[in-house]
């Protein structure tokens, strides 16, 4: 590991001390394994993923495990979140009748992603699990398998093909071209963008926060203190902004999930 890849906090390097700015980079997203279980080397991201899962289950178990008709405080909060996704996302896109079946999936997806994003601003953790492509990719893959199989189940082989290609006779001569593009777009680009949208947002957000945090420390020397204060202020602003982005991205992910399912269930037109 070269010196400029070390995190600023781990050194006592400041501006005017003759050492370069330890800029964050891809290496900021790679962690050394903490321990190994059954051949899998557990690193920080995996641990946070598991801890996040436990936290979600713990919270919702406390909220819904012994739910009452007259809710307590935790149940009320849990219900607000649950109802927001159920009514605001699932019922809105799939309708109450068709959507009911997908409520557990969409609700758990939303809270899983949100908590994974939230790790970004939680002290000591301070790393969004979803900024590692493997996590969004796994979730996008589940959704992909779900909606593709749903399409086959609902429309049969030919119907599913028409659904994927957006088959429309009225297009005439451009139909083959349109079908090719649609097929490509739906089956290949869609799952990719679905995962990357979440990943890239969290990746960039984390990079920005790390950048300003490191800069605050690095600039803390002599006249640099003035710059450091601006950088620190930016860190706070970015944290607040990230809090917003984390929720939005989780929301967008489940909303798209619902749209894909809706497309799979839609009648041919």
């Amino acid at each position, binding site marked *: *590991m070269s010196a400029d890849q070390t995190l600023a906090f781990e050194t006592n390097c400041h501006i005017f001390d003759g050492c370069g700015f330890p800029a964050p980079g891809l290496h900021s997203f790679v962690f050394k394994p903490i321990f190994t279980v059954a051949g899998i080397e557990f690193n920080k991201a995996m641990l946070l*993923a598991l801890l996040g899962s436990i936290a979600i289950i713990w919270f*919702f178990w406390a909220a819904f495990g012994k739910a009452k008709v007259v809710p307590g405080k935790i149940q009320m909060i849990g219900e607000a979140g649950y109802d927001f996704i159920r009514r605001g996302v699932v019922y809105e896109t799939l309708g109450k009748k068709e959507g009911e079946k997908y409520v557990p999936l969409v609700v758990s997806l939303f809270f899983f992603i949100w908590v994974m994003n939230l790790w970004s601003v939680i002290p000591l953790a301070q790393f969004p699990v979803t900024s590692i492509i493997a996590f969004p990719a796994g979730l996008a893959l589940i959704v992909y398998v779900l909606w593709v199989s749903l399409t086959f189940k609902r429309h049969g082989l030919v119907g599913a093909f028409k659904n994927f290609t957006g088959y429309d006779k009225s297009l005439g001569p451009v139909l083959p071209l349109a079908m090719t593009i649609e097929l490509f777009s739906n089956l290949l680009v869609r799952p990719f963008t679905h995962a990357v949208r979440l990943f890239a947002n969290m990746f960039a957000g984390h990079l920005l926060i790390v950048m300003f945090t490191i800069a605050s420390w690095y600039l803390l020397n002599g006249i640099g203190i003035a710059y450091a204060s601006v950088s620190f202020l930016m860190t706070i602003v970015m944290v607040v902004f990230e809090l917003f982005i984390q929720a939005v991205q989780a929301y967008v992910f489940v909303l798209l999930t619902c749209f894909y399912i809706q497309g799979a269930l839609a009648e041919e037109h």
Partner: protein
Amino acid sequence: MLLAEEKLNPLVPPIPELVIGTIAFGIVFVVFWKKLVPSINKILDERREAIEGGIEQANDAKLEAQQTLDQYKAQLAEARREAARMRSEAEQRGADLIAEMREEGQRQREEIIAAGHAQIEADRKQAAQQLRQDVGTLATELAGKLVGESLEDHARQSRTIDRFLDQLEEKADATAGTSGAAR
């Protein structure tokens, strides 16, 4: 410990993370699917029923209250009508009673007056009768004393008295007739 920079590609998912991430989500999903969502849905349904039941009950209560109010209003109106009727009836009866009593009083007064008249007449007749007898006796006694002898012949004596009395009556009648004419 860190991979070389050129080997890092953020878009290539590392397999261990993929597996762990999917398992982590899988656990969350299964818990939600099997336990939490059914549990909360049941409660939400119960709550909705409770609320709908409450609203229904409230509506029933409102309806019943309205009915009771209408009933009371009807009863009140009925009572007012009844009271008015009774009052007018009482007034009527009172007036009748007064008229009746007045009539009765009038009748009794007339009866008393009539009885008084009859009594007076009877007394007068009796007095006249008595007087006639007394006058006869007195006159006979007087006449006997004046004549100096007893008038033995009773028959003659009676005739004389009667004749005398008739003359007296004729005289009295003449006097009454003149006085009545004068009035």
